[in-house]
């Protein structure tokens, strides 16, 4: 089946530093979604990217979809302790409703 690679697996930052997680697929994607899971919680949908080269922003979070629609990134500017959690990308191939999730990047923020 489809594989989605996400790096890094862990990231520790000082509060105020930036953070980026990357998601890569060997196949062209229909769209990609990003989810956040707080410690002890469940994944919560953040955003979806559909178009080649698309960039979307949510306050300090910037999401990008690659031109070839094979990779994506999530960048957080000036991290805060509320950003702590695991960030997952989830990719969809050409059709259907199923998603393939990346392994996730666990972010810890030191105050």
């Amino acid at each position: 089946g489809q594989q989605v690679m996400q790096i890094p697996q862990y990231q520790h930052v000082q509060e105020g530093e930036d953070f980026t997680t990357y998601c890569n697929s060997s196949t062209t994607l229909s769209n990609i979604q990003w989810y956040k899971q707080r410690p002890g919680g469940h994944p919560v949908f953040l955003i979806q990217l559909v178009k080649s080269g698309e960039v979307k922003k949510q306050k300090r979070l910037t999401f990008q979809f690659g031109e070839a629609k094979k990779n994506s990134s999530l960048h957080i500017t000036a991290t805060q302790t509320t950003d702590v959690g695991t960030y997952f990308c989830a990719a969809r191939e050409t059709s259907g409703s199923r998603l393939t999730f990346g392994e996730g990047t666990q972010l810890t923020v030191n105050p």
Partner: protein
Amino acid sequence: DVKVTQSSRYLVKRTGEKVFLECVQDMDHENMFWYRQDPGLGLRLIYFSYDVKMKEKGDIPEGYSVSREKKERFSLILESASTNQTSMYLCASSLIGGNQPQHFGDGTRLSIL
């Protein structure tokens, strides 16, 4: 808001037992999914269903079965539980279509002794 409810937050069972995990959603979603979450492996799809009585295998269906008799309820069954099925199990639902987000329950942490 969408509510996805899983029947148990924590569950402890013994090897060889038949285990039922229940999931109910209240938003009339067509799609329902069962994942297991293990450290370093992300979320892996076990089974999903796009309609009542319909089911599709995911990436790791071995040792599991599912039942969807009503639209709002999706059950995961471990036919004969084994220790390697100790994990966090997450249920999700979504509207039909390729651009719909998935809504997750709080998860069931299952331990097989």
